């Protein structure tokens, strides 16, 4: 069956993107770059696996359920990613300010 074959192909591609996302998480240098890998690669990986699942299922209601799962994961992924990045940035800038004021305190002297 060519449909079966296409489904296996899509699922394999999906797994590869999840693998790439995990590699990015391990290899990228900082929290922001890692978020790129997590949101984009995993979103595409899940999308491909959902497409593979749709080819295996008979009823449109089940297709909708899979698509709904994908939409929900995508939405929560994008929002969580923004919140993590924002928190990281604000902590970083706070640390920078503390560091600067520490330097200023040490600097003055006779």
């Amino acid at each position, binding site marked *: 069956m060519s449909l079966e074959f296409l489904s296996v192909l899509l699922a394999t591609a999906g797994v*590869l993107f999840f693998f790439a996302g995990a*590699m990015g998480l391990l290899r990228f240098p900082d929290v922001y770059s890692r*978020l790129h890998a997590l949101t984009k690669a995993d979103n595409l990986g899940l*999308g491909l696996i959902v497409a593979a699942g749709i080819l295996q299922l008979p009823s449109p209601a089940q297709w909708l359920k899979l698509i*709904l799962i994908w939409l929900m994961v995508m939405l929560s992924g994008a929002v969580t990613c*923004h919140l993590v990045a924002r928190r990281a940035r604000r902590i970083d800038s706070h640390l920078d300010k503390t560091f600067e004021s520490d330097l200023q305190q040490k600097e003055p002297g006779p």
Partner: protein
Amino acid sequence: MNRHIASSIVSTALLSGFIWWILSDGVWASWIIGLPTILLIVGWNLNQGTPSQSLPRFFGLLEFLPYFLWESLRGGIDVARLALAPNMPIDPCFTVYDLRLPKGPAQRVFINTVSLLPGTLSADLLREKLIVHRLRGAPDDDQDLRECEQRVARLYGLTLTDADPSQSNPGASWS
């Protein structure tokens, strides 16, 4: 009760009902739980104060969806290539983007879509300026972001006033 609130109630109820129908596989008995839940959602939504100002237009959605899917495909492939490349040619940096979309659902959709575009990630929002993290260095212009913002504006039937980038107070108007 004005028409605005009424249409917000109807659309929330219809959307929640549709999602419940999908989740419950259309089993009739499940509505014993589904209906009260939907009423709770509608009530909670009303309780949140102003209902969302606008909904995406149907034809706008048909236009936006292919762009969105294509860009998330490109974004995924791009970051996967970077993550797997032996020399990992990334050049992370932050850039600042002046938002032209007004506060509200359209702006939220834009901010979340930016994170799925190739190489960009919305990191923070400070006084109508979006702090964008880029994986491939800072470009000369933010053409990718400007196009995405333009498409989100069309999705919501808004017109962007194409302000000079150096101008400090760019704005958008309802059409």
